[in-house]
């Protein structure tokens, strides 16, 4: 069987690399390497050597030009030392090779702003959606119920029944699209795999605080048509053990946190397909 290798990129303001790598290991990856962006830029680390790329939470460049904008620009233009290849090219090759990319929070913002999600018609460089300031105008750290679309092609949400309860921690999580057709396509193709919902996962909601940011159609996470590239505002890596749950001292919970399934599914996919 393939040795499943996960890569977590950090640097320039990424903050969740440790827990993301931890979640990868718990989920079944044989290796979870945290690489500083400078190690990619110098060519010490190459995406080609890994199966699962984690673009995780943080404030890339302080979100100074809008969340993740500066990093999107950097990856597009800055070339790996000794070559003319920008990281963007490596990234497109990675996706083309059938590998997995999970963007969480700031990583989701990065994917959307680079055009890699929803990437309708397999166009991974045209931006058609965005994540912008929460309707409240405030950063929010709170836990949210996320209804899962069982018909979604997402590799990561496979097998989740009903939904999953995870923390959100962001100031710019409101999902918007460029045109009604984009939203229609996202919905018709079941790409909106996670939506903010009520506690019973019966219906998506636009009500604050259940929907913490006012996202269009309550969208919390989307995937591309292959289901291999996914982004979400909530943090699955932040709930891999019951003691991370806000009510673990009062509820009977399984030892394992509900966010781990995203990483377990990824590891399983890698082992079976790559």
């Amino acid at each position, binding site marked *: 069987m393939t040795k499943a290798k996960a890569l977590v990129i950090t640097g320039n303001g990424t903050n969740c690399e440790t827990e993301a790598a931890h979640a990868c290991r718990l989920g079944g990856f044989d290796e979870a390497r945290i690489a500083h962006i400078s190690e990619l830029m110098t060519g010490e680390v190459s995406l080609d050597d890994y199966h699962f790329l984690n673009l995780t939470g943080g404030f890339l460049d*302080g979100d100074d030009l809008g969340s993740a904008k*500066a990093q999107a*620009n950097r990856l597009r233009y800055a070339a790996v030392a000794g070559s003319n290849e920008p990281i963007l090219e490596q990234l497109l090759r990675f996706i083309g090779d059938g590998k997995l990319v999970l963007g969480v929070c700031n990583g989701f913002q990065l994917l959307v702003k680079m055009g890699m999600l929803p990437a309708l018609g397999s166009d991974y460089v045209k931006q058609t959606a965005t994540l912008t300031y929460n309707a409240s*105008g405030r950063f929010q750290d709170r836990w949210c119920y996320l209804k899962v679309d069982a018909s979604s092609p997402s590799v990561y949400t496979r097998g989740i029944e009903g939904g999953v309860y995870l923390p959100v921690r962001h100031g710019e999580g409101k999902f918007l699209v460029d045109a009604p057709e984009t939203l229609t396509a996202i919905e018709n193709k079941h790409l909106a795999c996670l939506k903010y919902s009520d506690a019973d996962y019966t219906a998506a909601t636009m009500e604050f605080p259940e929907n913490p940011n006012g996202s269009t159609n309550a969208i919390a996470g989307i995937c591309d048509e292959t289901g291999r590239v996914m982004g979400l505002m909530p943090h699955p890596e932040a709930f891999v053990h019951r003691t*991370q749950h806000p*009510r673990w001292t009062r509820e009977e919970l399984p030892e394992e946190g509900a966010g781990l399934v995203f990483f377990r599914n990824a590891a399983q996919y890698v082992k079976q397909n790559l």
Partner: protein
Amino acid sequence: MPHRIEITLKDEVRDPRGERIKREIEHFLHLSVDQVRTIDVYTVDVPLSREELEAVAAGPFSDPVIQGYAIDKAAAHGFDWLVEVGFRPGVTDNVGRTAGEAIAYLTGRALAAGEGVYTSVQYLISGKLSAEQIEKIATGLLCNTLIQRYQLLDAASFQAKGGVATFVPKVQVEAKVEVNTVNLEVSDEELMRISRDGVLALTLDEMKIIQAHYRDSKVREVRQKLGLGAAPTDVELEALAQTWSEHCKHKIFSADVEYDDGTGKTEKINSLFKSYIQKTTADVRAALGDKDFCLSVFKDNAGVIRFNDDWSLVFKVETHNSPSALDPYGGALTGIVGVNRDPFGTGKGAKLIFNTDVFCFADPFYEKPLPKRLLHPSRIFEGVVEGVEHGGNKSGIPTVNGSIVFDDRFAGKPLVFCGTAGLMPATVNGEPGHQKRIVPGDLIVMPGGRIGKDGIHGATFSSEELNENSPVSAVQIGDPITQKRMFDFLIRARDKNLYRFITDNGAGGLSSSIGEMSEECGGCQVDLSKAPLKYPGLAPWEILISEAQERMSLAVPPESIDAFMEMAQRFGVEATVLGTFTDSGIFHMLYGEKTVAYLPLSFLHGGLPPMQIPARWEQPVHPEPTLPPAADYTGDLKGLLSSLNICSKESVVRRYDHEVQGGSVVKPFTGVANDGPSDAAVVRPILDSFEAVVTGHGISPRYSDIDAYHMAANAIDEGLRNYVAVGGSLDLVAGLDNFCWCDPVLSERTPDGPYKMAQLVRANKALYDYCTVFSLPLISGKDSMKNDFYDGTTKISIPPTLLFSVIGKMEDARKAVTMDVKRPGDLVYLVGVTKNELGGSEYLAQQGYVGNSVPKVDAQAALASYRAYHKALNDGLVASCHDLSDGGLAVAAAESAFAGGYGIELDLALVAFAGAAGEKSDAVLLFSESASRLLVTVRPEKANAFEAALAGSVCAKIGAVRGDQTFTVTGLSGAEIVKAELADLKEAWQAPLREL
């Protein structure tokens, strides 16, 4: 020619920033406006082709889904008034810096010296407003004129002028790199003028000590050989002023104090710091013997204690009060990113694992007139909260614990306490992680941000009271991302053993950091002309003392320097070799070839004799209210729940990421709806282990109005009981003291100095008395002693305040307990004794009284019950636990009930009371703030075991958890004196600050 790129939101897209400004205009300024929209403006002072400008505007600067852009033409439309706010020259512009980097990536050309991008924001305001009103919005809300400038246009002038005029806030300094000497052979008045005009904050005695040094013939002889005159250079005088500042030298804590206890008995105290704080730790460590867990105390930037065999814990809490008074956002942001550098710069360096913040403000709804120059408390509140939000969140460090305390005297100076803990390997490359050294010959290296005029005189300015002329340059704005990049690099450099010594550049800048490092090896030689500058034209003394942020000072062995510099470059971190550590005994500064400062270390660090400060205690007597018994206290309870000190701070806390790094176990909010207030935080810093760090704090400034001794005792007890409540161990726990005082030194301006100094003495005595019993070593701390406002007529002094932070360990995080009641039928116990101690309570404050019967802590009894409780918790006998503090039993029980979603019934007749029978009343039992009490719920089947565990302590069963939503209290007469639905109580508690 500079270009203006304006980024607009598409008309159909909501503008949350504009909406928020509209709300704030209405809320704080009581003006009504129809709409506020905003535009981001980038003033690009970089030569770019038209094509490049388009690419920059369309690419990194705007989001095509929601935004449009205009290049060199005005985009604003549909408004009555336009206010554009940008930074003044030289103020840190983080977004501008990132924008410049983005241009460099896009064009493939790095920005040349002098090129730059500057940001501003346009507020487009619609509504019927007069010119005077819009001016008030501009200066009262949108623009802090200290660091920002604004342009204001009505729609007609905007049309006429064709938009806002381009303005490039570039620093234009005449390059006058010169060193002046200061003649000290002058009159005393003239010496004081030199000190005052130069913001040196040196007293006449100190000026005369310096004068004497330069008169010394041996000193003159040496100086002559070096080509230096007999008079000090400005570089020398500034270095001395920084090093000798109250901020850096802690002169009040080192002073000789003559203390009169009010009965005529006097005592001579040589250094409060040595006599109480250091002695506390020494005595506790001696008593602990081989169980001593302290590794590095008082000597480094932060304290270090053992966590386990592989890891050590590092902790520091700082204040950043004076800058936050002037620029609340920048001051507080710098406060948090500044304290981050303390644990990071401790030992060989530590990974940062959590932040804590405590703020003290005046009422944000304050409506009385304020002295000129003081910002309204609501602006301070909003700015400080946002500054710490950005500093903490962007740095990726969870903010796990904190509180907000309100007292109108904090209008004079807000208190902004920021703390950071770190985790350090017990061993780094074969040496203890908490130790470091410097070898003469090591290179002095400064990595991180560049030096500008920001923060010049920060250390000396905070050593004076705030006044109308407080210097603008004393304010810095931190940049969490530059710092994060530096930390990402340095932690890897640590593990590669590329440096020997690391410390922070904070107050006093290089003067302090290199000055202190020089003591390690015996000297230094620095070329200030090598320092990287934000813009040209800084004088050598400015380079030396600038407090520009995000810089560390390191000692790098010559053999490692190439690898160090190469790695820095790879990580995008600027690092510069400034000089060499020596063993010459001299603090030697050059500018190029020329010596600009030559100070013997013995004089720099040892030249200052202790101050002599009188202290005389006088027990104040306040009017004692009579409290007529009432038939119902439900209204009083709701009133307390709605008081600013007790009400929910959730609207603030949710803005802080408290879960990043994945180790959160007990979060700030808990309970059935995630909205009950936790007592303390539990964090697992190592994700594959269940060993946890527990942190809590205590603060009770109001008790200072009665006796600062008991203020301190209660703060210590509160910190420890919060920590104990969630499950912290008493065998590995340490304290950290932060004193914030009003000036206690007798002078013309401070005639009541001896009383304030006596308060300080008494707080220190309490620190020793209680921490030795609790076995709480003090591992680090800080004092801020000049928290007054004085403009010549009005003086506002803060109430003397001790923040006592507690940090320790919990062996198994899975045993942690939260404050929410868990299930109907559980029994309610009150651990600890209740006394008639309403003095200084929130209850009396609500009625306009202070009273006299301040809570007194019985340390032995408290420790015994904490130990018993901890054992019960470890045995799994505790369902919930909430500490009793502001508002006493009634408030704690109400909070536990509505957090858990079940009612509680209490019977006051069952409460253990100590005191004269005549003092026992419903009001006392409900609202007294007697210390060391915990409200515990226990499953009925575990009741016997719990009672047995607590057998040696005061522990009374006083009620039960109900199955419904009703909270009731039966009074001493047997009648029901409180009855309320949980939803009403929770609403009373949540409403006051919900919208802030």
